[in-house]
């Protein structure tokens, strides 16, 4: 009696005759579509949906004129970010992730990585107190209380860390906490390549220098 289902199948196929091929196509088409869609969705798994393109990538740092945290009278502009491969770290005292990443910035600075700090939409006194109590990993402390330079740079949330080449071009941006994992996997390769290429990545001339 276990043959019954097969028997009915045979009757069915006998009955529909040559239309079997078409029927099969009709059944298989949704399957193919579903598998295709599944593949597309599968490739998106693990991608960070909050990751945005960096609009300023391979562009020069936008022009700015800011004071430094230590000297309200100082006038610092974009030329201060040229001449050497370095990091630009956007931070603020109101930003919890900035506190989390601070020890790692200290470690990088002690290893000889040049980091410029951009204090973003903050208060001078609070920022200075933070630096004196937690240590200052920055070779230069830019002070941007209104976030004007940050806005031109495309900063949408602290902390953000940019890799700037010797010509003052943005070569990489990381949004969020900079820690050892992120440094090793994403930022350091770009940084090292720039150092070795004396400020030039193979195959990508800075746009404005042609």
């Amino acid at each position: 009696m276990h043959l019954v289902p097969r028997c009915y199948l045979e009757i069915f196929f006998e009955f529909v005759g040559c239309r079997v091929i078409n029927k099969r196509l009709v059944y298989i088409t949704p399957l193919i579509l579903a598998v295709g869609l599944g593949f597309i969705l599968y490739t998106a798994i693990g991608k960070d949906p909050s990751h945005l393109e960096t609009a300023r990538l391979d562009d020069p740092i936008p022009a700015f004129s800011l004071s430094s945290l230590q000297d309200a009278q100082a006038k610092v502009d974009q030329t201060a970010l040229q001449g050497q491969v370095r990091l630009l770290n956007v931070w603020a005292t109101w930003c919890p992730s900035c506190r989390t990443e601070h020890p790692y910035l200290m470690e990088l600075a002690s290893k000889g990585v040049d980091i410029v700090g951009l204090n973003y939409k903050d208060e001078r006194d609070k920022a200075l107190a933070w630096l004196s109590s937690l240590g200052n990993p920055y070779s230069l402390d830019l002070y941007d209380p209104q976030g004007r330079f940050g806005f031109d740079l495309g900063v949408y949330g602290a902390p953000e860390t940019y890799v700037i080449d010797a010509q003052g071009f943005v070569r990489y941006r990381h949004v969020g906490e900079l820690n050892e994992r992120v440094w090793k996997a994403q930022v350091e390769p770009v940084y090292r390549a720039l150092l070795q290429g004396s400020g030039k990545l193979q195959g990508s001339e800075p746009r404005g220098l042609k």
Partner: protein
Amino acid sequence: VSQLALIRAKSTSVADLIVGVVFIGLLVLGSATSVFASIDAKEFSSEENRIVYLDLTRELRCPKCQNQDIADSNAPIAKDMRDQVHLLVEDGRTHEQVVAYMIERFGEFVTYKPRVTTETYLLWYGPWVLIGIGVLVAFLLSQRKNARALNLDKSSQAHDEAKSNESAVNSDDRETKRSKIAELVNKYDD
């Protein structure tokens, strides 16, 4: 008695009216809050500028919160963007110029209405291509159906004999099929 009824009717209609007014008021409030939120008590030199500003704040997307326009978002960056849009519009920049300004800083992501570029051709024209394919397929299928109906018509008129032969063959065929099926059914029935 009639007077009492009249008073009662009046009072209920007044109550209805109050309820109605309150209800409509709530509706208006509910729909207007998002507009109020986006205005931020900003001053405009002209009504056109206000309209351009409102359009822009609904078209520009907050980079931090992702699924909100900047009119709708309370994120600090959305407020900065609203302030900047206001400044630029009052400065005489056009809608397109402000959108370009924001894209320059925050990328194509920032607009809910992507520009037409080679990267967005699929996005803009893909649906139309699909609709075109659908219409084409529907058209071809209907054509084929028509052609078949026409063929049947012709054959029934012009080739009566041939057709009767054919149908005889067909009915023969059907007979053999039927007997085959009966055979199979019998075979497995017990």
